[in-house]
């Protein structure tokens, strides 16, 4: 991996890291962030636009917590026999409640996120996936979430 494909500079990294700690709710929040970082408001706005356009940031805004809005979310896994992998993938992916689905290098080789509007729908969806695939679904909802302080190297 020698190709340099860096899509951000040291100031962008400072900006992204700064925003990990929160964004102000006030009349001119970008200006406030700019002041905190010694930048201009225009520079902050341009950098964010650029980071979103080139995909360095997948989005910028409020991160909503589905469970607190009455919805339900879980991470679930299945042990899929290798020979049935494609069939099971198609069955699982056909559920609109399945948001993300990843193949992983483990005996539990399919991991997916299920999101529904109510906890009851979540239980029903997991049961329906078990029924349609004939495989056990290991339900792993989060029991607790710990604060993370991910920081990028500049």
């Amino acid at each position, binding site marked *: 991996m020698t190709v340099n494909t860096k899509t951000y500079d040291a100031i962008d990294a400072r900006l992204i890291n700064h925003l990990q700690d929160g*964004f102000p709710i006030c009349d001119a929040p970008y200006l406030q962030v700019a002041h905190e970082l010694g930048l201009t408001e225009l520079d902050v706005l341009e950098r964010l636009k650029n980071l979103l356009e080139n995909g360095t940031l*997948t989005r910028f805004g409020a991160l909503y917590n589905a469970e607190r809005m009455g919805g339900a979310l879980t991470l679930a896994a299945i042990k899929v026999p290798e020979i049935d992998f494609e069939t099971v993938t198609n069955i699982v992916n056909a559920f609109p409640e399945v*948001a993300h689905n990843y193949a992983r290098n483990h005996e539990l080789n399919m991991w997916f996120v299920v999101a529904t509007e109510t906890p009851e729908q979540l239980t029903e969806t997991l049961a329906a996936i078990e029924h349609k695939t004939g495989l056990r679904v290991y339900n792993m909802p989060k029991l*607790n979430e710990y604060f993370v302080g991910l920081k990028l190297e500049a």
Partner: protein
Amino acid sequence: MDFDAIDLMIMRATQAGLPLVSRPYHAIAEQLNLPVELVMARFTAMQKSGVIRRIGGVPNHYKLGYRFNGMTVWNVPDEHVDALGERIGKLPFVSHCYHRPRHLPDWNYNLFAMVHGKSQDEVNQQIAQIATLLGDFNLGNDVLYSTKILKKTGFRSGTI
């Protein structure tokens, strides 16, 4: 305050992101035909109640050069999981850290931490660092790498 119709309007209007204009909350207020004071008060309240986890950027780790993303899983004593989870979450290379249920005997791990590195070596060192931090509380661990994205929708709650 419960999540209500106004919060839902605000959520729908901002699910794709905050406007990149000088006064973003004013822009949302104008779009929804609500007083800006109300919009800002609702943002503050939703953040306080946890409906909004935070306002900020969601980095694409892959684009940032972090090509090696491991789901590390750990078996730690349940009575210590919260204290240990708090400490692991504070490590700079951990992006998500959760307590999840075991499924014995097939799945013994109760603590999940997503780690991100620029090389396999770096991820191995990160795993070693977590193992050191856990010390004798580490009763077993594994790391799962995604080998293929099978589905990825526009789902945006950010709380996997």
